[in-house]
């Protein structure tokens, strides 16, 4: 439409974006700052830290959690908590290992577990959406169901890959860059593009930000939540391939720590548990920061029992800082 100016409604207003970019990406800059400081301190403390090998190690170690976190973050942005990813990952790992044992070609060993993850995620989404149970509770129940399935599929056994399938998780490009780092970075870029430049991504932000307003704007809430859960399941399914390839076996109890660590990484990266907020670069850095701290504590020879305590403290401090910032803004 056009509105004529004789109604006294004209204002030329320069709307520039610079200020908001600083603001919305503040948590990204925070994190970058913290990471730079941590890396500098560690580099000064220990000469072995700041080597290409160790830095790639950190990335490599975080790649599996990082990929899972991308899926969990997508669901969180849409206002959905997904606690199933860890046990679901154990299920798809068992499927992959059984397929390998049966001598199926590598292509199918990649495709089928990913498809299973996607499908299971969609089922999670349907259950959350149709039963109207709070997503935390619904996926808590589902998590236990997958825990059972992860035991049922391989009859409770570890399944050894006997040297097959090693390339997907342990190959190093140019003998130095571990291939999972490539997956992690590629998936991060893909998710970033989807969340920022597609209508699908924007809809997820809208649904998480205000479901009622999104509904009245013509968005199909249920469909998009189901899709968010499906993507989260797909990420878990793909991650299971890297994990079994690395450790040479599938274990029914693997992955149990993933859901909470992934949520922690996403929240450190600026994602809000109530949905609608957070950027993918932030989530990426959140996952990196967790790995960096763990690696640093290892290098400093902090006993692993204490590492858990330290990690918990870091998570609480990071989230408290971002909450305090939000509270100040809304006052």
């Amino acid at each position, binding site marked *: *439409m*056009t*509105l*004529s100016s004789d*109604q*006294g*409604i*004209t*204002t*030329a*207003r320069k*709307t*520039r*974006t610079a*200020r*908001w*970019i600083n*603001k*919305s990406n503040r948590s990204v800059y925070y994190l970058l700052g913290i990471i730079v400081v941590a890396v500098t301190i560690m580099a000064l403390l220990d000469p072995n830290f700041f080597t290409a090998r160790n830095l790639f190690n950190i990335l490599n170690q975080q790649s599996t959690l990082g990929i899972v976190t991308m899926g969990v973050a997508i669901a969180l942005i849409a206002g959905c908590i997904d606690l199933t990813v860890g046990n679901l990952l154990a299920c798809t790992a068992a499927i992959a290992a059984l397929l390998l044992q049966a001598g199926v070609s590598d292509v199918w060993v990649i495709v089928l577990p990913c498809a299973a993850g996607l499908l299971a995620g969609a089922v999670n989404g349907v259950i959350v959406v149709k039963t109207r149970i709070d997503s935390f509770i619904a996926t808590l129940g589902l998590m236990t169901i997958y825990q059972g399935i992860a035991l049922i599929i391989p009859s409770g056994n570890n399944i050894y890959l006997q040297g097959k399938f090693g390339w997907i998780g342990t190959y190093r490009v140019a003998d130095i860059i571990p291939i999972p780092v490539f997956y992690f970075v590629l998936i991060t870029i893909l998710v970033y593009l989807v969340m*920022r*430049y*597609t*209508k*699908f991504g*924007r*809809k997820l*932000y*809208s649904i998480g*930000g*205000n479901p*009622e*307003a*999104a*509904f*009245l*704007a*013509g*968005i*199909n809430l249920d469909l998009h939540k189901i899709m968010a859960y499906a993507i989260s399941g797909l990420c878990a399914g793909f991650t299971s391939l890297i994990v079994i390839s690395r450790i040479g076996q599938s274990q029914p109890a693997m992955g149990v720590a993933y859901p909470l660590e992934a949520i922690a990484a996403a929240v450190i990266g600026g994602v809000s548990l109530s949905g*609608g*907020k957070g950027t993918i670069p932030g989530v990426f850095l959140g996952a990196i920061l967790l790995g960096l701290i763990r690696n640093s504590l290892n290098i400093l020879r902090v006993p692993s029992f204490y590492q858990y305590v330290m990690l918990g403290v870091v998570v609480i401090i990071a989230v408290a800082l971002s909450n305090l910032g939000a509270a100040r803004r*809304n006052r």
Partner: protein
Amino acid sequence: MQLLLEVKGCSKSFPGVKAFNKVDFDLYAGEIHCVVGENGAGKSTFIKMLSGALRPDEGTITIGGQVYMHLTPALAHHLGIQTIYQEISLAPDLTVAENIFMGAEPITRFGWIDYPRLKKESKTLLDNLQIDLDVDALAGNLNVPQKQSVQIAKAMRMDARIFILDEPTASYGTNEISNLLGLVKQIADKGVGVIYISHHLEEVFSLYDRVTVLRDGNKIATHDQSEVSEEKIISEMIGRDVSKFYTRASVDIDYSRAVEFLDFSNGEAVKDVSFKVHKGEIVGFAGMVGSGRTDLMRLIFGAGIKNSGSVIIEGKEVSIHSPKQAIQAGLSLLTEDRQKTGLILDHPVEWNVSIVHLNNTSGMFISEREESREVSHYIEAINIRTPSLKQEVRNLSGGNQQKVVLAKWLYANANVIIFDEPTRGIDIGAKEEIYKLMVQLSRQGKYIVMISSDMPELIAMCDRVIVMRQGKIVGEIGQDQLSEESILTYSIGGTL
């Protein structure tokens, strides 16, 4: 008679509004004192001051001979002031008896709750008030009037001396209303002073000992029973100089083209509503709060579950079962609560403006450059004052937030625009800008529906006003007869 309460010269200001202006009020034991006024007359400010939720800027409140500058909720409670609001505050999983004695349960020697006594005393209390309810029933299973009576019983248990009822019958049927009115009379007979706030004049007339009329925060008059007529009270409730209000430019209406809404019902709040809007026409919806106007618009927009109802746009029927279909048919709904249902407060202005357009056009991708350009265009066209496109909507003023909501529907190319309380809570300057925009839109040939509880606004803006009451259309007023008297008469159940 014993004087229970005396309010002297109480005032209260909010930024930009004098909500309550040097009001005097008194209440005697055993009296039912009704308070009437339009929406925004200061009734709720008055209640909040008496229940201790608001502090008066000046004036005194005298209770039982003691003079107070202001009350607190605890003090009000201590002095025996009990307020019954429209919203029910019972614990749904506890029984009637447990709710009545919540926080003051009789206990046995060993500190356990004495259930036999709890039940017996509840039963006695209910019998005294002639309330017929099972004390073992769960509060959650009761209907609204029953819950209301439990709340009243609970308040009586707490030795209420001053009883305030705020629009208690908003969602009642006729039968239930007469039950409640009977209960209120009984309470007064027991020597309690009752302040009864309502905009249903027939209730007031069947109940009152005295009635006080408020308008724009001022007390207009207090009348004794039998000295006043309904017409007199209506004229006192209105009494505003309408000519000072906004004067809009006139627009030619194309009567050959119309959007028709037929037989909308949802079985409860909306009953068999049909109306039509012509091209370029602004049709107002008046009625008291709770008359079903908002529910009707949500039904039309596909956001509620309807039993029946069809939309015919310029002769062609369109099927609408979801907001998405409504949007594709060219409808738009600016909801009454823009912060809760119209905007995503944490998201930037830009995202809020483009949301409907993006979600209802083809293509998968977002071009940020095009988005910024288009949104900038609307921001300039309707003069949204924001430091940047990226500003979070939360930080804008109410008027600018409303314009963001409007911009999103304009960008979505809406043809039928439903405004629900478009100027609620925004300042007078921004109101006029919204009015101007509405007139411009009608000039462009849009179909405009406007719900408002602000009668001068309806009269100034609308070509025609439809009045709803209890889910039905009870009157339609053309411009020649449009006045606050005619609207109010229909709204409270009268006829012209």
